[in-house]
């Protein structure tokens, strides 16, 4: 399947994402060339926020439409319901987080709740981050489990390979360090364990579970490689993998483990996460639309 034969919604998402990343690259180049932070900060604050909210809206609308394609009793109906609610949580979360955002600063954009925020953040901003992060991920995990079970029932479940286990091992090591740093930060400042901070602590273990599910799903989806259904679940798998990368980048920024030039690309990972999450239901919807169009030659192949 080439770019021209991709579903229109996927091409649209891909095109918007590429344009957005190009704009980010220009803003970054201006910063490097002139030392002026104005462009990159405005890019993250306005263009970045608009992009993330816009794609979350597209993701939510596409997910709900995909859910409506299923009837009561269908195996994946509950999964798409959970995905739709998760997408809605991401949308509401991003809207709240961006409206009440204190601005990105030089630590990059914040798109997920963390136990140790480095700036004083408003409650609504933190609620937004919790909704878009741990709450959405908590809804996504059982949805992916249902999809994995569906593949399994057809004898199409994927076996994890050595590289998958290696990725899980590395991610586990880094995530444990992330959690440990969060605990140290909390203890050092005697910060109370409120709801949002508690949800921040849930993110790392949850992401590890999701990474395992995503890797398994990716292997299973490979049995349908090249098809719209396989691409749908591969997109979700990629979204989870990129979320893990983004979280690790955010951790490295917060605790100063990596120099800024190495960390800056992880800021842009969040935009790819949004794109991948929106492409998943777009592929599913295209599959449903094709069936609706029937088998007439005009539907093309």
């Amino acid at each position, binding site marked *: 399947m080439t770019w021209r034969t991709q579903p229109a919604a996927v091409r649209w998402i891909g095109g918007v994402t590429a344009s957005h990343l190009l704009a980010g690259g220009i803003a970054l180049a201006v910063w490097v060339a002139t030392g002026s932070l104005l462009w990159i900060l405005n890019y993250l604050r306005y263009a970045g926020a608009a992009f993330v909210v816009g794609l979350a809206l597209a993701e939510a609308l596409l997910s709900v439409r995909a859910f409506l*394609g*299923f009837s009561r009793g269908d195996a994946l109906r509950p999964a798409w319901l959970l995905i739709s609610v998760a997408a809605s949580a991401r949308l509401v979360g991003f809207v709240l987080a961006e409206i009440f955002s204190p601005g990105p600063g030089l630590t990059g954009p914040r798109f997920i709740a963390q136990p140790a925020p480095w700036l004083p953040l408003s409650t609504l901003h933190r609620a937004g981050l919790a909704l878009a992060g741990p709450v959405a991920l908590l809804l996504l995990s059982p949805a992916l489990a249902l999809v994995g079970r569906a593949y399994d029932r057809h*004898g199409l479940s994927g076996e994890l390979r050595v590289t998958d286990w290696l990725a899980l091992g590395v991610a586990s090591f880094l995530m444990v360090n992330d959690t440990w740093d969060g605990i140290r930060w909390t203890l050092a400042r005697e910060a109370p364990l409120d709801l949002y901070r508690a949800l921040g602590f849930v993110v790392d273990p949850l992401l590890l579970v999701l990474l395992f599910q995503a890797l398994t799903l990716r292997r299973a989806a490979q*049995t349908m490689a090249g*098809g719209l259904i396989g691409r749908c679940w591969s997109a979700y798998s990629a979204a989870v993998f990129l979320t893990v990368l983004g979280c690790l980048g955010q951790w490295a920024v917060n605790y100063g483990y990596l120099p800024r030039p190495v960390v800056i690309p992880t800021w842009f990972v969040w935009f790819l996460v949004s794109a991948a999450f929106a492409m998943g239901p777009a592929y599913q919807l295209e*599959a*449903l639309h094709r069936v609706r169009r029937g088998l*007439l030659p005009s*539907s093309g192949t």
Partner: protein
Amino acid sequence: MREQWHQLVQAAAQADSFRGREAVLEEILALVEAWDSEGTPATGRCNARRPVLHRAVARRLAAELEVQLGRLAADLTQPARAVEAPVHAMLARSGHVLSTFLGYRAAVRLSQAALRLTGSLSKR
């Protein structure tokens, strides 16, 4: 027709594994064959052309299944080419997978489109 298809999908769903469904699929194939032949006039000329027309629709259906199911479609459509009624065999083989991943309504819609096309071609 909807109820009948629902029963077919249910029957296929009860089998534990993909291979285990083969026996159920044989039954489905017979049922779908009977279903399709209900509305088709059985003249000698139509009967003679029927296998050719079936294969034409089968090619289109196989292409559609490849778009939906990717690599898996090869497993579901290739053995069907060897039998007399490839459209029905493909629908029987792919019906359960499509019903799971695209929903029951979509699976029915695709099967109806394939069977309608087969029926209309047979009458020409």
